[in-house]
C-alpha cells in the first residue's frame, strides 16, 4: 500500500473553527497548496439530508427541480468504474447524454441494490439552472457570489487531471477519496492528449489503481510526491489551479458541490485561455528542434513565467510603463486590439 502525504486540515465546525473566509483568501490561496476544510458545509440542509439516507437526499434535491435536462455519463461495468479512454484510445469508454435529473436520481437509487451495475455520473451541473433555490438554503460564506456546480454519481473514478482554475470541492453526500499531485509532477504523470480528453482537461494515462510501471516507469516518482485524503459529507478540499487530482467516489450515492474561481472555469475567465496559448505555441513551434525549444523556454521564463526569484528582473520592474504594452496592465480596449492583431496573424 502506498503511503501518501497528508494534506493540512482546517475546520469550520461551529465549535472549533480554525479558518475564516478572509484567512483562506489572504493566507491559503496565495500559497497555492491544497488544504482540507472539515465541516465546511456542516450546516447545509443538503448535507443533513444526505447523512440520513440516499432517499432523503434525493427527496431534498427533488423539491428544487424544475425539469431541465443536464449532462450525464454512463460507463458499462467493463469500464471498472473508471471514466476514461477506451482500450485503444480511439474514443472514451463511456456514453454521455442529456437527461432529466429526477430520472437520473431515480436510476441512482435503483442501482443501490444491484450486484453488477454501470457507473453513472452527473457532471458539473450549474446549480442555479438545474436546481434554482438550492444554494439559498445551502450557501457558503466563502463564496457568496459564486454559482457552484453539482456532481452526483455512484461509485466511480475520475482519473488524474487538472483544472485551469482554483477549486474548492465540498462533499455533500457519500465519501470521496482525492489523490493529489503537485504541478511539478506533470512530467511523471504521462498526461495525455491536449485535444481529446475524457474530462475536458488533459488526463494522466496511468491507471492509478493498477499502475503499469513497465509502461509508465516515471509514475513512481509522482506517487512519492502524492497527497491523499478522504472526505465525508460536509468536508471540503482546496485544490489549487493545475494540481493534478484523481477522484474516487466510494459510496452508492455520492455528491459534491464545487466552486471554481480564477482562471479558465472561473467567472472572469479570459479568452484565449492559457491552454489555448499552449496550443498556439505548439502550432508556432512545430518545426523547432529540441535545442531551439530550450532557447525559447528561456524567453518564456523571462517574459511569461517570471521565473527569476529576483523581482527586479521582471520586465515590469525595469521597462517604463509607457512601453510595457502587453506586459503591463491592459484595458478592455487594449485586449480587443491585441486579439484583433492575432486574428489577422492567424488568417495568414
Amino acid at each position, binding site marked *: 500500500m502506498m503511503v501518501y502525504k497528508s494534506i493540512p486540515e482546517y475546520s469550520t465546525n461551529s465549535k472549533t473553527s480554525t479558518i475564516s473566509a478572509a484567512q483562506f483568501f489572504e493566507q491559503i490561496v496565495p500559497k*497555492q497548496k491544497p488544504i482540507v476544510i472539515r465541516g465546511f458545509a456542516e450546516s447545509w440542509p443538503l448535507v443533513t439530508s444526505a447523512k440520513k439516507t440516499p432517499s432523503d437526499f434525493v427527496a431534498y434535491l427533488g423539491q428544487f427541480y424544475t425539469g431541465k435536462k443536464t449532462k450525464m455519463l454512463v460507463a458499462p461495468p467493463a469500464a471498472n468504474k473508471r471514466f476514461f479512454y477506451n482500450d485503444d484510445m*480511439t474514443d472514451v469508454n463511456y456514453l454521455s447524454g442529456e437527461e432529466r435529473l429526477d430520472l437520473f436520481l431515480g436510476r441512482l437509487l435503483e442501482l443501490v441494490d444491484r450486484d453488477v451495475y454501470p457507473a453513472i455520473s452527473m457532471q458539473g451541473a450549474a446549480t442555479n439552472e438545474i436546481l434554482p433555490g438550492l444554494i439559498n438554503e445551502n450557501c457558503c460564506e466563502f463564496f457568496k457570489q459564486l454559482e457552484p456546480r453539482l456532481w452526483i454519481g455512484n461509485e466511480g473514478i475520475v482519473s488524474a487531471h487538472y483544472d485551469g482554475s482554483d477549486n474548492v470541492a465540498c462533499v455533500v453526500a457519500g465519501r470521496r477519496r482525492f489523490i493529489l499531485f503537485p504541478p511539478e509532477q506533470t*512530467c511523471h504523470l504521462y498526461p495525455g492528449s491536449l485535444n481529446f480528453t475524457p474530462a475536458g482537461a488533459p488526463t494522466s494515462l496511468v491507471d492509478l489503481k493498477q499502475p503499469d510501471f513497465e509502461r509508465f516507469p516515471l509514475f513512481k516518482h509522482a506517487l512519492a510526491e502524492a497527497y491523499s485524503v478522504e472526505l465525508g459529507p460536509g468536508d471540503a478540499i482546496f485544490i*489549487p489551479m493545475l494540481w493534478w487530482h484523481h477522484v474516487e467516489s466510494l459510496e452508492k450515492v455520492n455528491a459534491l458541490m464545487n466552486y471554481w474561481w480564477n*482562471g479558465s472555469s472561473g467567472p472572469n475567465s479570459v479568452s484565449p485561455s492559457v491552454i489555448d496559448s499552449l496550443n498556439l*505555441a505548439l502550432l*508556432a513551434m512545430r518545426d523547432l528542434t529540441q535545442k531551439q*525549444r530550450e532557447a525559447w523556454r528561456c524567453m518564456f521564463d523571462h517574459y*511569461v513565467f517570471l521565473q527569476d526569484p529576483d523581482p527586479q528582473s521582471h520586465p515590469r520592474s525595469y521597462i517604463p510603463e509607457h512601453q510595457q504594452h502587453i506586459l503591463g496592465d*491592459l484595458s478592455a480596449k487594449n485586449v480587443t486590439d491585441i486579439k484583433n492583431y492575432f486574428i489577422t496573424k492567424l488568417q495568414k
Partner: protein
Amino acid sequence: MSNFKAIPEYRNLAAKQFFDEVVPEQQPIVLRGFGDDWPLVAAAKKSPNEFSANLCQHYNGNKVTICAAPPSADKRFFYNHDLTGFSFVSAQERFDLFLRRLTDFDNKQPSPALSMQSALIEDILPGLLENNSSDFFPNVKPRLWVGNEGVVDTHYDGTDNIACAVAGRRRFILFPPDQTSNLYPGPLEFTPAGVPVSLVNLRKPDFDRYPRFRSALENAYCVELEPGDALFIPMLWWHHVESLNKVNALINFWWNGSFAEDATSPNFLDSMKIAILAMRDMTPKQRAAWRCLFDHYLFKQGVDPASYIPKHQHHMLGEMSPQYIASVKDYFIKKLQK
C-alpha cells in the same frame, strides 16, 4: 574590460558538416574565409571606393530604407533617453546616393551613424548574387547591411543566422539564451530593430541600474570578423554588433524560424505574446504551475508526449497536415473573436 569567451573557429567547413553537425548543437561558430572567393570581398579589401563601385554596377535603382543616428546617439541605433521614441530616424533613399554619402563622410568629424539594414539583395542588386553566393544556402535569399561605424544593441533573432562580413571589421558579442533575464530585454511591441533589445548599453553599462548584467558579461562570447569571415548565430542567441570601420558591410542568411521564407504563422514571438495575454491575471505561483505544463508539452523537458500517446491522438503534439493547421487556426480565430 570584460574577459569574453572565444567562439570555436573553422576554415573550409563543408556545408554538409555544418548542417549535420554544427547547426543541431545550436552553439555559435566562426567560419573564417567563408566569403573569401567573392569578388565583392576582394573589392572591399582594396578600398571603400572599389567596394562601392562593385556594388553600384548591380544597382537597379530601387530605393532602400536608411537609418541615420545623430552624433549625440553615440553610434547607437537605439531608443531615445526616455524610451518614447528612437535615437535615429529612417527614410527611403537611393542606394547609390547612400553609398556616396558614406564614402564622403570618410574624413569628416563628427559624422552621423548611417545604416542600411537587412535589404533583400535581389530587390536592389540582382546581379550581385551571381558571383557572390554560398553553396551553403542555394535556397535562402541573402540580405545586405551597409553602414559606417555603428552599434546595433544586443538583440536576438527568431531564426538561425549566418552573417558574413564583406567590408570593414565587425565585432560581435554573443550571449546564450539562458542569459535572457540578465540582459534586461526591453519592450516586445516597440523595438528599434523589430525584435526585443537589451536595455543595457554594453559599451558603458550602468551597473547600478542593471546589476545582473555583470553575470551576463561573464557568460558572453566575442569575435571580430574581417571581410570574408562569417559567424553562425543560433536562434535566440543575443548579439551586440559593432561596425568598426568607415565603410562596413555584411551579407546574412536567415533560415529556420520566423525570418525564413517558410516561416510559420503565428510566429514564435506571437505565440509567446498570446501566452502573456492569456496569463495576465496569474500570480507568480500560478505561472510556475503553468510552466510545468509548458515544460512537458511544449519545451519537452521530460519524456516526449508523442512517445507514449498513440499517434492517432497526437493532434497538436505530432505532425500536422496543412489541412489540420488550417482547421486549428480557424478554431483559434473563433476563440479570439469571443
